[in-house]
């Protein structure tokens, strides 16, 4: 059979059209599948609220900090330059410098405020990590793979909240009693609050929230309208740290 030039062009055009059609059908069916599966599995976004008023009830209480540190083998270095922080306190005026006036400063300025990683919705620490050692999980927890971290500290520079600490030396000698069920870290990796993801995996809440007798720390799913956390955020006025940066913190402060 002889094919003329015109026939050849016509046939190849038809072939290409068929191919494109198949691709389009695939893409469309893939899209609809993704839609249904996403709606089938409800997304989770873990969040937390610190009720500062309740937290102030007991002067000098550090139960949550101790609970976190003993759970996660957080070392205690005397030298502040080597300090490792997961959850800690800073004076109000340093945490919310814009949220005070000459007259409120007297009272509020020096009050302690709890700080930890905000588990940002769009975390800048994740964007800068050159080796994918830190990332936001599907449930909103921003986590670190200590195995993979090369200690470049880009993430520390990127985090606008100072949530991350670097191990300048072997942390083991500075841990009073080691909890065998959580790894210690090693010299040269970065660490921070992990929202107790190892406890979440067992269906438990974070150690800090559990330890607080005043119930000043409320943990829950921000995606679930009737979670305790969402109810609290509906009924009380709450702020985030530096919301103007667009990082979308999952940690709220009831002031």
């Amino acid at each position: 059979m002889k094919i003329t030039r015109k026939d050849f062009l016509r046939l190849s055009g038809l072939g290409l059209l068929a191919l494109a059609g198949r691709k389009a059908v695939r893409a469309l069916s893939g899209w609809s599948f993704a839609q249904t599966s996403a709606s089938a599995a409800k997304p989770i976004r873990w969040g937390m609220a610190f009720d500062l008023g309740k937290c102030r009830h007991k002067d000098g209480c550090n139960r949550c900090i101790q609970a976190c540190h003993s759970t996660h083998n957080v070392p205690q270095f005397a030298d502040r330059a080597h300090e490792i922080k997961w959850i800690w306190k800073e004076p109000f005026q340093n945490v919310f410098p814009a949220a005070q006036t000459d007259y409120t400063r007297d009272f509020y300025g020096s009050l302690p405020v709890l700080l930890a990683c905000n588990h940002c919705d769009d975390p800048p620490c994740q964007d800068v990590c050159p080796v994918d050692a830190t990332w936001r999980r599907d449930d909103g927890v921003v986590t670190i793979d200590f195995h993979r971290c090369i200690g470049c500290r880009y993430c520390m520079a990127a985090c606008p909240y100072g949530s991350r600490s670097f191990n300048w030396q072997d942390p083991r000698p500075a841990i009073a009693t080691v909890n065998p069920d959580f790894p210690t870290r090693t010299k040269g990796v970065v660490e921070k609050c992990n929202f107790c993801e190892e406890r979440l995996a067992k269906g438990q809440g974070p150690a800090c929230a559990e330890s607080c007798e005043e119930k000043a720390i409320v943990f829950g799913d921000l995606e679930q309208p009737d979670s305790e956390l969402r109810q609290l955020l509906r009924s009380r006025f709450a702020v985030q740290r530096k919301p103007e940066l667009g990082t979308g913190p999952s940690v709220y402060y009831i002031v």
Partner: protein
Amino acid sequence: MSDRPLIVAGLTLFVGLVSTPIWHGALNREAAMAALHIKLPAREKQCVAPASYMRTSHMQLLEHWRNEAVRDGQRQFVAFNGKTYDKDPTRTCLTECHTDRKEFCERCHNYAGVSDPNCWNCHNDSHVASEGNS
């Protein structure tokens, strides 16, 4: 031309010397294996995978465990025999079986000429060590 035997002899000597580690190891294989004295776990007879697989591929298995547990949140391992284990080197490997990493992991690594595993810089073994097997 008359140098040929010399050259061949020299080359043979050279190759023989350079390959000393290989044929020395091959000849003394049995003796060296016996001298290794790996202490097997007292409590458990079956590892999470067949011993032959573990001997050659435990590093791949551990790496899989690590990635799945840390990255995908899958912390349970279903073994070839249907048993389920936690992907937890401290609890599953050390506490249950290989209670003395120096006598197990490190002895074999030294034997094989590989650097000591650095798992235990972070994963804890102090509680098993202090439970007294030395």
